[in-house]
């Protein structure tokens, strides 16, 4: 599911270092076609199984943000700075992916895609039972693409860039699915681990004295990129942590939420107050 999601946002890539412009355009077109199709599938599916308005809004909202990232990229401004590039990555990792997950578009898609779709999702759904595993997977993928060699590779070659964004969207979608939909206690350590690791990566970028990436404006640009990853990029994990707690509490624990003052206790307490 998430793999296809990523195609939606793929055109947002910041290529521009590619030699072959046609190739770049081709990969961009591929990135543009599939998500539109996905959006279409959702609309078709939504006619068969009506989503709640809330979820529908979230889905369209996420798609809209993805589209804006896309147009922003075609305008070319994303190619000019690592910090802006980082903003784009963060949009994928901590805004678009969780929004899609919260929209829970699975019923609509499956309604439109049938048995093949179900077979396709199954392994992902199974993996999504384990927030810690998906979290570790995500950290690996994020770490991998931020090592200078692979980052610059993605800058130089639009197909690699496509792969980068697909893998980002895939793992972050999986991660957010396991965190926001599943109800296990391991959600919290998974979020903390992710927060710490992305924070450390951001810290390393923020403190680095040497430039790493080919799309840097200057060293401040790299610092800003690191800080974006570290601070605002960490916020959604914080918020998600709080949200997951609230949800954990409201689920199976509704009964204990209100403690009413029984008459005996009130009397006893009143007696105490006069002591």
């Amino acid at each position, binding site marked *: 599911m998430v793999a296809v999601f990523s195609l939606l946002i793929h055109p947002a890539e910041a290529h521009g270092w590619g030699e072959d412009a046609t190739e770049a355009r081709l990969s961009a077109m591929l990135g543009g076609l599939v998500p539109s199709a996905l959006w279409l599938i959702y609309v078709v599916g939504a006619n068969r199984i009506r989503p709640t308005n809330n979820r529908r809004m979230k889905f369209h909202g996420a798609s809209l943000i993805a589209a804006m990232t896309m147009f922003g990229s075609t305008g070319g401004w994303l190619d000019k700075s690592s910090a802006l590039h980082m903003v784009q990555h963060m949009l994928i990792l901590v805004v678009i992916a969780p929004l899609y997950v919260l929209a829970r578009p699975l019923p609509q898609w499956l309604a439109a895609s049938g048995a093949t779709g179900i077979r396709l999702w199954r392994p992902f759904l199974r993996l999504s039972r384990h927030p810690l595993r998906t979290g570790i997977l995500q950290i690996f993928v994020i770490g991998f693409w931020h090592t200078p060699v692979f980052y610059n590779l993605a800058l130089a070659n639009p197909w690699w860039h496509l792969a980068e964004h697909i893998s980002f969207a895939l793992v972050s979608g999986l991660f957010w699915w396991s965190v926001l939909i599943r109800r296990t206690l391991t959600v919290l350590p998974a979020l903390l681990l992710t927060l710490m690791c992305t924070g450390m990566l951001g810290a390393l970028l923020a403190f680095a004295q040497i430039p790493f990436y080919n799309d840097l404006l200057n060293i401040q640009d790299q610092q800003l990129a690191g800080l974006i990853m570290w601070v605002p990029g960490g916020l959604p*994990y914080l918020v998600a942590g709080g949200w997951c707690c609230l949800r954990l509490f409201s689920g199976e624990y509704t009964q204990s939420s209100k403690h009413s003052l029984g008459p005996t206790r009130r009397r006893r307490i009143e007696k105490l107050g006069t002591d």
Partner: protein
Amino acid sequence: MNTNNETRKAEAALHDEFLKVWGNPRGWRALTIVNHTTVGIRFMITGGIFFLIGGLLAMLMRTQLALPEQEIIEPKLYDQLFTMHGTVMMFLFAVPVLEGLAMYLIPKMIGARDLVFPRLSAFGYWCYLFGSLILMSSLVLGIAPAAGWFMYTPLTNDVYSPGPNVDFWLLGVTFIEISAVSAGIELTVSILRTRTSGMALLHMPLFCWYILIMALMIVFGFPPLILGSILLELERAAGMPFFDVARGGDPILWQHLFWLFGHPEVYIIFLPAAGIVSTLLPVFSRQPIVGYRWIVLAIISTGFISFGLWVHHMFTIGIPQLAQAFFSMASMLVAIPTGIQLFAWLATLWTGRPVYHVPMLWLVGFLFIFMIGGLTGVMLALVPFNWQVHDTHFVVAHLHYVMVGGMLFPLIAGLYYWLPHFSGRMPSDKLARWGFWMTFVGFNTTFLVMHLTGLLGMPRRVYTYPAGLGWELPNSVSSMGGFIMAMGISMVLLDIVLHFRFGRPAGANPWQADTLEWATDTPPQPYNFISLPDCPMRHPMWDSPDLQATIADGRHGLSEIDHGRRETWGSDPVSGAIREIIHLPGNSWLPFFSALALSGLCISLLIRTYSMALIAVIASLVLLLRWSWKNGAFLEADSDSAAKSGYPQLHSRTFDGPGLWGMVVTLLADGALFLSILFGWLYLRIVAPNWQAPETVPLAWQPLLISGVLLTIATFWHHFIVRRLREGRDDHLQGQLWSIAVVGLVHCGVLIWTWSASSLLATQTAHDAVISVILMYQLFHSGLAVIMTALQAMRVAYGYVDKGAPYEIAVVKPWWLYTTAVYWLSFLTVILLPIAWRSA
């Protein structure tokens, strides 16, 4: 009347039976006690003594600073005083006392008979005591650490701090931290796995939530400093450069590691104190706390946020200005969860009918002082202001407002509140009020004025100052205030000491509290509860006031004792439904002697006699392994496995007992340490100004690959065995375990060979030094995996472990997995990453 007498007689008989199993020995054998009540009290008393020592150091400093140009204390001694004052208050007082309180209270609050690893609590206490004594001995010998409580490099390296002063700090504090981490692990597992029947997470008293998060923060937060201390000690003793710029290190790395610990540490201290507030306020407001869930949420988010803000302690060290701006803003985030708690407290007071007993006085004092500390904290988060007052007395004033307001005041409130529980007697009202007001007035006189001293430009950590700068008046006022505060504290002390003799008997539940700890006897019996009640509610003592009687009567669960086992419930971490009976180990000399052997190691490292250190290592290893051998009391468990019909299994029959949880939480701490190593490796590589990496990685990758494959095979094999055990098959168990151990041994051999054949020069460059540390770390884990598996094979031979009692092998499983993960991660970052880097 007659039946009443009979029940009382039956109660007494039951009590005697329980005491036979749970009773504490006297005399020398008191050193073997593992009971959480005793250990908790020992922690608190020891911590209290260190608080007095720390206070005495502060008094000396205030005397010296009372007037300008005094020469009572020479500068060298003054350096030792302020360093030791900070260290003692932070590491020897604040954390251990709160841990002790938690250890004392948690099992009673969650309806358990003891903490889940009683011998570990005793071990933690002895580590703390011996470590503190080692550290304090330096003060007596006049060679105490003198570089400030955060030990910044390069001041603390062997060039600028020759002599053993810094070593005392590094070794002593690390030793104490081991105790803190073990307490953290134990509290986490106890809270999650030993709550009484039906106590779901959201039924827990709020104090348990605070302690749970504090314990987890210790687990994640202490390892960076432990690593930093090990690295700095390696640099000082073995010449391996990590913080030395010339050889490719970076002193700023120390600051990162320190504040990675140091910032969470503030909350590790604050959270339990806030937990005391959230426990006491509802009781004295006669009203359940307002916004239970919101407070839980605030506690958890405080824990999260505190791991992201360490940089705001480092505004003036030359980090990029952009970073300062970001962290200045991010620092404001802390205000949200703290604000939630504050408003919940205020709302509880507002909607309740507060009664102002003595503990309430301290709580109100806390609210006032902590508020000011929070406000100056917001001021310090603003970068320009931070630069202006950096390293002045303003910072000193701020941190005392936060620490004393945020920790000491609630702690004393809690002390007064639980005093009847400790002793069965009530404190004197008059003396207690005097004590409070003198402390409160004295504190504010000292430190409110000190803000001004700082704004007037007086730097901290100077042993004296010239007259005529306008610093005389505020300094002498501060000194006077300090002495008033000292008198207040001594009045509190006097009150506490006197109450043991003159206090009127407290009776049952004197404050009409709501939580289970008041259902024990006061003072409590070593077994806490004769029978363990169901507790699917937040306020058991308010809902069923006769709980104490029915518990003592044996009318609830697990009231059998004829089997002679120490037992408590093992329950589901979320719902609190009973899963198994946990069989707790009893008194033992092993924790004491293990800690003694480790302190021998500590001392021999201090005086740098490495042959003695080797002996100490072997002695500790033997003792610890002996402990692991004797801890499984499964022979006795065997004889009476069918405890009582309708009761769940003993935990040794399951795959998911507390040991596994302990192992996993330990590995979380271990993982935090490893993550810090990786951070250090990458940080030095990227940031260190003189980073020197050789052209090729100085380790041959082929044998490393082979070694890793062997390790992976061993791990998979071990997994396979556990899976077969789950299916109830244990054929060839012993042989397979031996084979796994052999495969693991070959893996270690190949690794050692590769290391010895490499051209690593650990004392020449930071690059080689870090790789050596990673190799040591790996070998430690691999070696321990081999030893544990071999021990398991022997236990199978003895018949302690089989398909009927498969529990222990399942405990070792995560260790293998972790060791393998660490191996491949290290391979990735040490061997593969540089190749990718170079080709970039």
